[in-house]
């Protein structure tokens, strides 16, 4: 790093820093515009002279979003789905990642290749068979029809990414634990799990996002019982192709983005080092 700095002479660094700030502003602009539009009064949103500020912020759009029938219900449903997916896939992926990194066994490489192949399966293409499967399970119109598929779809990537973290725990620690008389289960849950936890959190981001973002399954599997619907459906209510209620869309988008944003900010540092660790090895 220090070397990288000394390569570049001063004016170049200033130019680089200005560019970085400019790019940051451009990248952040859509989010800023979303927030701004959510707080603009109706007249200012539907204005042909959009201004990058508002002189009279209003909560009207948010009110429309929250007054929507069962909006709170949608929010809780979305949260339930995302949290169930995160917890279940983290535990299952942790066990599987431990198996493929800390043991040598037949078909180990085959399995790894299969996980690699599995993560490229286009989720959307499986909507059709998944629909029939959920119908046979009797899960249509329940949150289960959203939770189960997302656990399956987030597992392969989670396992592949967790490998780096599980591998990083030194073998000597495992041997020491066994020498001290710890059982395999004890080592797994009381020593390995806490050590891998940062990685588990970083991995969770991906399963959280995929579950939280999903609108295709919600749209296809929750057909008649709208009380089981999730947030994206509440957003799409405002988004009518010909006459969208932009204020409502932006306010609902804000409500939907904030939990993910919070999650990202909380795990940010772990995510960066986690990706480095997962890919570096």
């Amino acid at each position, binding site marked *: *790093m*220090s*070397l*990288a700095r000394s*390569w570049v002479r001063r004016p170049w*660094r200033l130019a680089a*820093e200005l*560019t*970085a*700030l400019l*790019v*940051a502003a451009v*990248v*952040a602009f*859509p*989010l800023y515009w*979303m927030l701004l539009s959510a707080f603009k009064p109706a007249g200012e949103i539907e204005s042909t002279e959009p201004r*990058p500020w508002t002189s009279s912020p209003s909560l009207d759009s948010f009110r429309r979003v929250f007054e929507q029938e069962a909006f709170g219900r949608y929010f809780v449903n979305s949260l339930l789905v995302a949290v169930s997916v995160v917890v279940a896939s983290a*535990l299952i992926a942790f*066990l*599987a990642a*431990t*198996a*493929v*990194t800390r*043991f040598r066994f037949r078909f180990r490489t085959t399995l790894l290749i299969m996980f*690699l192949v599995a*993560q490229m*399966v*286009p*989720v*959307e*293409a*499986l*909507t*059709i*068979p*998944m629909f029939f*499967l959920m119908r046979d399970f009797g899960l249509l119109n329940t949150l289960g029809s959203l939770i189960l598929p997302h656990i*399956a779809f987030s*597992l392969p990537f989670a396992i592949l990414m967790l490998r780096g973290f599980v591998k990083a725990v030194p073998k000597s620690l*495992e041997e020491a634990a066994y020498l001290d008389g710890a059982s395999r289960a004890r080592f797994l849950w009381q020593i390995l799990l806490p050590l891998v936890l940062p990685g588990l959190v970083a991995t969770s981001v991906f399963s959280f*996002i995929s579950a*939280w973002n999903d609108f*295709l399954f919600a749209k296809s599997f929750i057909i008649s019982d709208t009380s089981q619907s999730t947030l*994206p459906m509440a*957003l799409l209510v405002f*988004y009518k192709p010909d006459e969208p209620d*932009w204020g409502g*869309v*932006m306010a609902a988008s804000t409500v*939907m*983005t904030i939990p993910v944003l919070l*999650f*990202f900010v909380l795990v940010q540092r772990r*995510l960066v080092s986690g990706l*480095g660790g997962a*890919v*570096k*090895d």
Partner: protein
Amino acid sequence: MTRTVARQTAPAPAQPRGGARTRAGWTPWLYLAPALVVLGGLLVYPVYQLGLISFLEYTQAQVSGGEPTSFRGLANYCELFADEQFWQVLVATVGFAAACVVATLAVGCALAVLLTRVRAVPRLALMLAALGAWATPAITGSTVWLFLFDPDFGPVDRLLGLGDHSWTYGRYSAFFLVLLEVVWCSFPFVMVTVYAGIRAVPGEVLEAAALDGASQWRIWRSVLTPMLRPILVVVTVQSVIWDFKVFTQIYVMTGGGGIAGQNLVLNVYAYQKAFASSQYSLGSAIGVVMLLVLLAVTLGYLRLLRRQGEEL
């Protein structure tokens, strides 16, 4: 991707011999059992069913149980391949995915390099902005970008002085708009990963190269690029897989595939065939085509890994 795996796993006699070893024989499978059950039931079986449906006559009548399903062999595929629109959509999908991958990688890598050249404050600003874009759900990102480029109320047309130019009307400008959103939400992954990779390159290596009189360009080309290769391969393959499967952005931003389906990509096309016109078997056949294309990408990646002598 896994240079140290070989180092760590090859000398594996840490496992005690004898009885303990046979017990170890079952333990990994015990740990794998939940994952295998879930993946088998909810991924492998649906994929199998997808293939099966693509060979059947499967429309609304069969779904409701009104008519029995009948085996059609390759008839669905013949119908699909005879359809001009399918080829048009396939070409559009490949072209669109390629453009997205190239743009995402170019932006992501350039910004990763930029991150190594700036001090803490601009770095933090760029990092936070990127994380914000990354965290934005695809559906909200799509609606926000659409609003930014809205012909009546969006700021972009005003800023560029385009009057009430509609971005979603023309085929290519609609694809371009979707591309912008896709790049916006997927470059952070590339940037953060490549940046982490560059930081992991030991300083001594660069110092040694500089002492040997290598120019900056030379250091990039001959030292950093080879060291970053595994990471670049991973982010490229990951981007190809993600961008080939783009669904939400196209579906939301172009209203389900654009005017007269001009902006359809395979994923949306399959969905429209299946759920909008109840041709489940045709939709499944499109899904199978997608799977095969992505499988080819993955196999190519595995061959690349093997050729580099890397173990999974």
